[in-house]
């Protein structure tokens, strides 16, 4: 995915922002905070995961998502979000 495709989606940016702020969250809670349904949220989560920006861990029926600490792109996004918040 090109960078403009990632950043052009409000939902995807919000997911990245939420995970940068709280660290880790399950899919249902992300959907709730996004204000969208679980299905739509899952599509966005999959897209971000395909870009290795986020990863998830499974515990039984629970999927916990977080920013991919091994991804240079994810680090860059996190820095951007931090700077944006600081100088808001």
């Amino acid at each position, binding site marked *: 995915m090109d960078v403009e495709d990632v950043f052009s989606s409000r939902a995807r940016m919000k997911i990245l922002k939420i995970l940068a702020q709280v660290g880790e969250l*399950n899919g249902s809670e992300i959907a709730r905070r996004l204000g969208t349904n679980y299905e739509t949220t899952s599509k966005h989560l999959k897209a971000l995961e395909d870009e290795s920006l986020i990863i998830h861990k499974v*515990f039984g029926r629970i999927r*916990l998502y977080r920013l991919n600490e091994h991804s240079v792109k994810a680090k860059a996004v996190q820095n951007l979000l931090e700077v944006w918040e600081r100088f808001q």
Partner: protein
Amino acid sequence: MSRYQSVFKDEAKLDINYIPHRLPHRDKELRLLMEFFSFMLQFPEKMAQRVLITGDIGTGKTVLAQRFGEEITREANRHNISIRYVHVNCREYRGSLFLILQHIVSDFHPNFPKRGYSAEELLRNLVQMLDEEKVYVILTLDEFDSLIEREGSDAVYKLTRMQEGRQNKPQRLSLICILRSLDSISHLDASTRSTLQSNIINLKKYSREQLTDILNDRVAVAFKPSTVPEDTVDLTAELAYSENGNARFGIELLWRAGKYSDAEDLSSVTPECVRQAFSSIIATVRKSDLASLNFHSKLFLLGMTRLFKESQKANASLAEAEKAYAIVCEEFKIRPNSHTQLWKYLQDLSTIGILKTEVSGTGSRGRSTLIYFQVSTDELGNELKMVLEKEGA
């Protein structure tokens, strides 16, 4: 003494959650706990331990487990083993296994969802987390009886047997269960009961001397030097002993007495401060109790309250009390009663609960009776004076 000076050096050392470095008269039990878990320090993956700690209120069960938690964590770090000690009060979580497990899980994953699965699933998830982090947990379930009451055998069975399904995998979860007596586990099924009862540490009630040692230790860290005389500690120990040898009660009493001392701008914590503190916890002498006493009993009592106020001691002998009574009788222009009669008054007052008597050890003149007050003698003295003046009039 200036208004802003306090007798306290560090009030936090009297807090219920403070874990002292030393646990007087519990060294043996602490060593025993370390022994039970020594295998874990060498081969942590091979064995999950289960220990029961029993004892009355205030016998040091919680602080023993917490102190052990600190020691074992320190030892584990030395051996490069990742052990996490978790202490949970089951009553705070309404005896719910689900809430207790959530508390532990939140240590590893703070944003783990709060609903959408069962306690059994959560337990499996927890073990998975421990496997991933390569951590061993020693979980202390304090007030374990509230978990048994609410969840029964099933929950306890799950906790204790959970690791049997994990062949050739590390044993991740050890349990320490704290409860007042073994009666609580009597209605668990035999299999669960036998699993829990493998190692039992029973804490006996503290003696007066042991309570004195414990309180002296706390005084040394919580109060400024020379602000808590021996008499005050002795009286506090006596009162804690009368409350079933409850050390926690004694420590709280010390704290309250310190507060009374500060409130009255005193340079030390007097026995009267302790009595006031005790009165504030326990119901004071009822007016009806005083009204039921005859005139001479009241005079005798008034004499004793004045004696205690003057001497600032924790106790007085019967001989001293008789002299004080004689002075009060003079004041009221009444002939004092005999020693035998006073002895009877003393028994009555002890029965009502206004004071306590104790026979001291043998001296060169034989044994003597010591008198202790458990209520504020100042307040009692004021009340008596009013009542006697009305009656005398």
